[in-house]
């Protein structure tokens, strides 16, 4: 069974097709990178997968549970209420701009949802959060506020915040694009360490070398469709003209 399954996803903004029949499945433990030019619909795809955006048509399943399906008129119908909540527990999303809560300390950013949403034991949540911060190399920043951190540190906190809810799959939307080049490395290193822990991840990125290194599979998107997908070797040595010209522009990363 696939952890994530998206079938024939369609999404248009103001009549402009942004996702045009995209199908994508991710197995437990798999690491998938999505690459492609700006405006190709990568963010929209992640936003549809995480139900921040409702697709116009198509199916969305997590572990075989239906989050959205096609109604009789071909329009997507979404699961509601408890069912939807249950499904939402499966995934987390790391944003390009972190979206940390500025009025909460780092520790509170990480622990607030486990305590107040999942209603878990405080002590346990705090000690797990400290563990996570240690993994992120931020144990001395627990009491700091986001505004006192660098972009790279903020992004690591955002990753810890998402992980604290124990999602089965983590989506990243260009996690390093808002960072200065010298801060990119520390975030990529953290994501790499998650890969070593076999956390399922779908990563939209412009870091080609990183994608090549970390991914089990790479998906190349352009103009709202998947142009090509395969192992890093396959995609990076592709003879497809569009893939080549895109990768050429990025060099080999």
């Amino acid at each position, binding site marked *: 069974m696939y952890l994530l399954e998206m079938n024939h996803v369609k999404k248009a903004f103001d009549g402009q097709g942004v996702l045009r029949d995209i199908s994508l499945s991710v197995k437990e433990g798999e690491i998938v990178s999505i690459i492609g030019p700006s405006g190709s619909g990568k963010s929209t795809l992640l936003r549809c997968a995480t139900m921040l955006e409702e697709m116009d048509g198509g199916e969305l399943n997590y572990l075989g549970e239906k989050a959205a399906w096609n109604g009789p008129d071909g329009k997507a119908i979404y699961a509601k209420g408890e069912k939807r909540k249950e499904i939402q527990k499966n995934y987390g999303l790391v*944003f390009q701009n972190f979206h940390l809560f500025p009025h909460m300390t780092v520790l509170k950013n990480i622990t607030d949802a486990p305590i107040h949403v999942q209603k878990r034991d405080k002590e346990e949540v705090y000690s797990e959060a400290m563990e996570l911060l240690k993994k992120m190399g931020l144990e001395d920043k627990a009491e700091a506020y986001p505004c006192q951190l660098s972009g790279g540190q903020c992004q690591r906190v955002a990753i810890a915040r998402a992980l604290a*809810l124990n999602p089965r799959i983590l989506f990243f939307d260009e996690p390093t694009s808002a960072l200065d080049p010298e801060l990119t490395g520390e975030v990529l290193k953290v994501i790499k360490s998650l890969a070593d822990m076999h956390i399922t991840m779908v990563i939209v990125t412009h870091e080609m070398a990183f994608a090549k290194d970390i991914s089990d599979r790479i998906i190349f998107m352009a103009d709202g469709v998947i142009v090509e997908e395969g192992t890093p070797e396959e995609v990076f040595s592709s003879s497809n003209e569009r893939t080549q010209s895109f990768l050429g522009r990025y060099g080999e990363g």
Partner: protein
Amino acid sequence: MALTKILLQLAGGMWVSIQIFIVTLVFSLPLGLLVSFGRMSKNPVIRAIVKFYISVMRGTPLMLQLMVVYFGPYYLLGIKVGNGYRLWAAFIGFVINYAAYFAEIYRSGIQSMPVGQYEAAKLLGYTKPQTFFRIIFPQVVKRILPSVTNEVITLVKDTSLAFSISVLEMFAVAKALASSQTSLIPFVAAGLFYYVFNLIVAVGMEYIEKRMNYYQ
């Protein structure tokens, strides 16, 4: 009349002014939040009604509103109200007027919040009320504090409008004393009172703003 007696009477008026001030804030701040929800409601009927209410409250003199609240029950409904109703009328008039102003302040604050905060909260599983009270509102408070301070300072001076429905607050007492004693001292004392009151309010608000500076 001895100076102490004048001051004693003024102190009585002062207390009434302070009561109006406190009651107005305690009730109009939460009511304003409720009104702002109505103003932003998905239901167009509620939205239109609330919008009209706000525009009337902001578009007509507070003094007139106080009179309507005070005389309304008798002129419109024939209900005889006793003398004790004066202060209540002042409370009601001030609260519904200030709630309208605060509602617009809340609304501007809430609408200025970046959508990313809502999206992050949604991804983390917060319910809508949790998102509002744990994530959005604390940030809104910080954002709107300067505008709230302005309103609070205006309120100190506005309390004197209760004079128009013969509530014996500071200003009414001072005016009565000034004419009976043919002395300017009551006016000077009243001016001093409003000034010091505002000074205290300003210091208090500054303190709260400082406390909000724990994050940028």
